[in-house]
């Protein structure tokens, strides 16, 4: 089976996010005054082939822990979907 994993990595609460701050102030300059907070993160799309969904989930989780996020400062979430031909 082919799966598509969609991984989002964001900074943990309390970790300084200069990108988010900069984007927020840029939005303010563009007069989106209602913007209170912007958090910048990273998005990965991973296509993988494995026997079943739970295996795919396990592998994605491992990838997140080992490489895609730095647990000292980042947390992650993911979605998994089957790719049908």
């Amino acid at each position: 089976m082919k799966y598509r994993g969609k991984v989002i990595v964001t900074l943990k609460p309390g970790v300084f996010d200069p990108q988010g701050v900069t984007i927020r102030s840029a939005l303010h300059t563009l007069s989106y005054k209602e913007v209170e907070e912007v958090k910048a993160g990273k998005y990965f799309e991973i296509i993988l082939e494995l026997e079943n969904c739970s295996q795919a989930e396990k592998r994605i989780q491992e990838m997140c822990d080992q490489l895609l996020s730095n647990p000292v400062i980042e947390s992650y979430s993911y979605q998994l979907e089957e790719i049908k031909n």
Partner: protein
Amino acid sequence: MRFGVVVFPGSNCDYDCYYVLSQVLEVDTVFIWHGDKDLKDCDCIVLPGGFSYGDYLRAGAIARFSPVMEAVKEFAEDGGLVIGICNGFQVLTEAGILPGALLPNKGGRFICRQTYLRVENNQTPFTLLFTPGEVVKIPIAHQQGNFFIDPLYQEEIKKQIAFRYCSSQGEVDANHNPNGSWENVAGIISKEGNILGMMPHPERAAEKILGSEDGRRVFLSVIKWWEEKRWK
């Protein structure tokens, strides 16, 4: 004694470290390719600055999985001396060999400038030629040097601070913190004291013609420490 300078693809201060060690200080120095696991009998390993693997994903995140890093980790666990400079420091924190993480600078930009550092601890193999509280001039050049440590470990880490950013007079405050580092941290050592990570570049301050010779004392300290140990 012998120094080994690790070369990751994208390292760009590897030659500078090699030059200072081999030509200026005239010590035996070799390059170690990131794909090798053999540390070539080195007594001190230098992880140089640069943009290993383009700093893609996160600075240091990919380099930590190089074959050489397995060997460096073992070497460090056995008490071997390791210096991570700038990107090398980032690699060490990513690998969990040193605590904390290096976030993007507070201003969000790359900063290259001379900085003053206060030596917080001279009881280490890397700082024994400095006096405690001494102010030294060593430049920085980085985009991600904002040292972060989880509040849970802050008390514990305080003892491990080696250098802090300060004014030319030694004042440690927010005005003299170029990147927003927690406690103005510029460099830390491991709990056991055999690993140093620092954002400033000592190899850029190792010759009079470059405006400061303070950085060379980091390397000279290592040489002295190693020679004393050998006599013991």
